[in-house]
């Protein structure tokens, strides 16, 4: 482990190294035809490397919890007797909880996020959902990611934001191989960066693939896109690969544990490690997407969910600490959501205990810590489920307007709701 925190791109040596790689790849590929509508290979490389994201540019990190996180066992109404009586087998002992105020407490495993809460960096928006809750994982997640709860559409809310931006494959990057629908636009989509197994063609094959990735003047629009997607593979990967090989920024304020057995490595922390490295290196990326699955806790919920929330909490705390050793810490805002919460009462039959609303977490230096939205009542249930007190589009509109600095209309249509969780 490198003892010295890496604080700027040139310390990583990646500018030189990557540019050399680019030159090597591009010399074989002589430009033919007009490619005016597309950035050239060189331009993308230049953008990623020579024009790093300007300082003070806000960066959004989206954390998707797949499977339906049980919101009631995440932000727990620990003074409400109905909570304990409704779910005697899956409630936590009051003395283990991490109280946030006189009514609500965090899951016992979320010590890291509790400490960020104490530093006023955590906004918890309660009862978030959408009208007519859908209890299918797939449909509900589609509604969240498309921001279109009443109609099936094929573009995501951030994809539509990308449509309004200049084309740049670095602008939105999802960790993992499959691009989440959230980042699919009409014209432009985010890039996917698979973790591990990032096998980019090398040597002769690389230069041949780069030849194939030229846009030809005889290309139809879709063929040009096919060529460009291959070119993006090289531009994203060749600017990113050297950075990935560098050590992650140090989490200065966390104790170093030798042997690396501090609860075990896990995929979310690996994803966030990569994001931290790339943010530190100045990647021209405004949106990062990471995810963790397994929240569909039908059995042994108390233990399983505590483990997962512990992973979320510790990974994000570590990530925030890593950012503190870079110049970008104050620019980063994290948004955590899941497709739905779960039923108040456990429903044993067929395991259909998918619920409706749940809490969202927004974390960062720019955040005004505290609670937002009304806590859904446990005694006034709708169909046995928690009420939705905040529409997720209120949160999205706030993020697009105040973090991505764009008019929300072009992404969400007319939407007036906002949640005031940013510092003035």
């Amino acid at each position, binding site marked *: 482990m490198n003892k010295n925190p890496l604080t700027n791109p040139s310390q990583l040596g990646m500018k030189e190294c990557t540019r050399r790689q680019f030159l090597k790849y591009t010399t074989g590929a002589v430009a*033919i035809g007009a490619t005016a509508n597309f950035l050239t290979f060189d331009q993308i490389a230049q953008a990623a490397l020579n024009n790093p994201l300007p300082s003070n540019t806000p960066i959004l990190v989206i954390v998707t919890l797949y499977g339906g996180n049980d919101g009631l066992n995440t932000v727990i109404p620990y003074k409400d007797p109905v909570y304990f009586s409704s779910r005697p087998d899956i409630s936590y002992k009051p003395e283990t909880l991490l109280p946030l105020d006189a009514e609500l407490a965090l899951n016992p495993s979320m010590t890291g996020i509790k400490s960020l809460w104490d530093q006023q960096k955590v906004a918890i928006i309660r009862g978030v959902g959408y009208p007519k809750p859908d209890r299918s994982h797939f449909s509900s997640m589609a509604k969240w990611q498309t921001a279109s709860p009443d*109609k099936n559409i094929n573009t995501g809310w951030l994809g539509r934001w990308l449509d309004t931006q200049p084309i740049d494959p670095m602008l939105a990057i999802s960790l993992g191989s499959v691009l989440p629908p959230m980042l699919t636009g009409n*014209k432009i989509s985010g*890039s996917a*960066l698979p973790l591990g197994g990032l096998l980019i063609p090398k040597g002769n094959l690389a230069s041949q693939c780069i*030849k*194939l990735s030229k846009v030809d003047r005889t290309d139809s629009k*879709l*063929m040009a896109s096919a060529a460009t997607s291959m070119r993006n*593979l090289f531009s994203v990967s060749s600017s990113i690969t050297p950075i990935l090989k560098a050590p992650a920024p140090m989490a200065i304020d966390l104790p170093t544990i030798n042997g690396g057995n501090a609860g075990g490595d896990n995929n979310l922390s690996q994803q966030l490690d990569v994001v931290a490295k790339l943010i530190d290196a100045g990647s021209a990326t405004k949106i990062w997407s990471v995810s963790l699955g397994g929240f569909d806790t039908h059995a042994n919920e108390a233990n399983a969910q505590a483990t997962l929330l512990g992973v979320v909490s510790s990974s994000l705390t570590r990530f925030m600490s890593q950012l503190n050793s870079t110049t970008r810490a104050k620019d980063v805002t994290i948004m955590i959501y899941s497709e739905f919460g779960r039923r108040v009462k456990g429903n044993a039959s067929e395991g259909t205990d998918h619920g409706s609303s749940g809490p969202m977490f927004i974390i960062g230096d720019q955040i005004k810590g505290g609670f937002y939205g009304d806590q859904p009542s446990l005694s006034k249930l709708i169909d046995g489920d928690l009420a939705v007190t905040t529409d997720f589009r209120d949160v999205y509109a706030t993020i697009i307007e105040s973090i991505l600095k764009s008019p929300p209309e072009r992404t969400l249509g007319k939407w007036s709701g906002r949640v005031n969780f940013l510092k003035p």
Partner: protein
Amino acid sequence: MSNLSLKQLFTPKQLTKPTQSKRLETSRLFHRFGFGPRPGEYAQALKNGYIPTRNKLLTPLNIDLGASKVTDPVITDLGKRPEPNTAEVVPFAVAMRSQSQALTLWWLDKMTLSDHGLTEKMTWFWHGHWATSIQKLNYPLPMYNQNKTFRTHALGNFKNMTKAMLQDGALQFWLDGQENTLKAPNENLGRELMELFTLGVNRYSEDDVKAIARSLTGYQVVRSNGTVTIKESRRDTNPVTLLGKTTVFNGDTLSEFLVEQNNCALFIAERLWYRFISSTEPMPLNFVAKNAFSNRDILATVTAIASDSAMSNPKYAMVKSPVEWFVSTCRALELTPSLLKTPNKIINYLDKLGQVPFSPPNVSGWPAGEAWLSSATAQYRITFATWLIKQSDLKALKQIPKEKWVEQSADWLGISKWSPRTILALQTSLNDAENFALLALCSPEYVVNA
């Protein structure tokens, strides 16, 4: 590279051949109305002429010898899921996994080995239309049964198909049909039946959604095998007013009523346009499919589309979805999916590319067009193709003299024309057949059907 030398790269033959003008249409016939040509088929089709080729590709076979080589999988009723932490869990999970895998490979084999691509292509189309995912069912048998229903009706009458689909356990369970009761109506199936399966979005009111939900109450599904029954006590038998008609519907009368709507012809024409002609350009109002669907006859409609002038319009390119790309690659390389070394890898690769049969992302099916053109899919296509090519003897390519590789590989793969860009890339690989095949299969001309 000057333009002069580029011109020389075109073989004069390709530019002047009288069949040139039908290369595009013939390529579209093979790749869109089937899963691509096997070696030699495209060149032979060009010799035979366009009309005979079209007739041949569109006429179903009495006996499909190729498809009959694929043995039906053994998919059983796995029964109730065992309690967690019991001894029964492991054999249950093993059977679930192996049967699900066998089911997927069986279908991929059918697509690859069939002598009548259109039947397989339409089965695939209907899977994306009535998009049902095994991820929610969690049992392979209902998905297998649904696939058989698609096969029965793939080129038949849409009215009969719709009736059969309301009796389909996988679809009913997927859209919560079994939770739709007199006391607590659930709109999921009814809404999608109108929006995504028969009429199209906004061609009905919210009151129609409530009415159709009531008409569909009472269905019960045995999840593990897909058996559908109707429980009269859970059924709402009061008359409803749906799209202006007041009556008591049952599944069959409801199917007939919906499918007879004019909007049904419009909607199915739109869906066929989107999957067969263009996912990016709007459908012209006079598109032939709408009238051709007047009897709700699917084969007649598809035949009309294949004969439409849109087939020769260069504007209507289509991206191959990952499954389409994989199957056409297997056909070109003469590979059988289930016989590949560690066939489970196929499903992993398809998963990375974002499209696994029986697992559409949601009820509206898979996306189309640019959604399949990300940097990550470009990468996985290269590694997937490399893996496949290693297991092929590349007979079709190797029997072409090297100096003709570039020219004749377009015929091998059913590509109407290589671009100057791809010709340049292919010419750097004339000493390495595997590499040549890789570039050809990952080229924009192969990933996108012109």
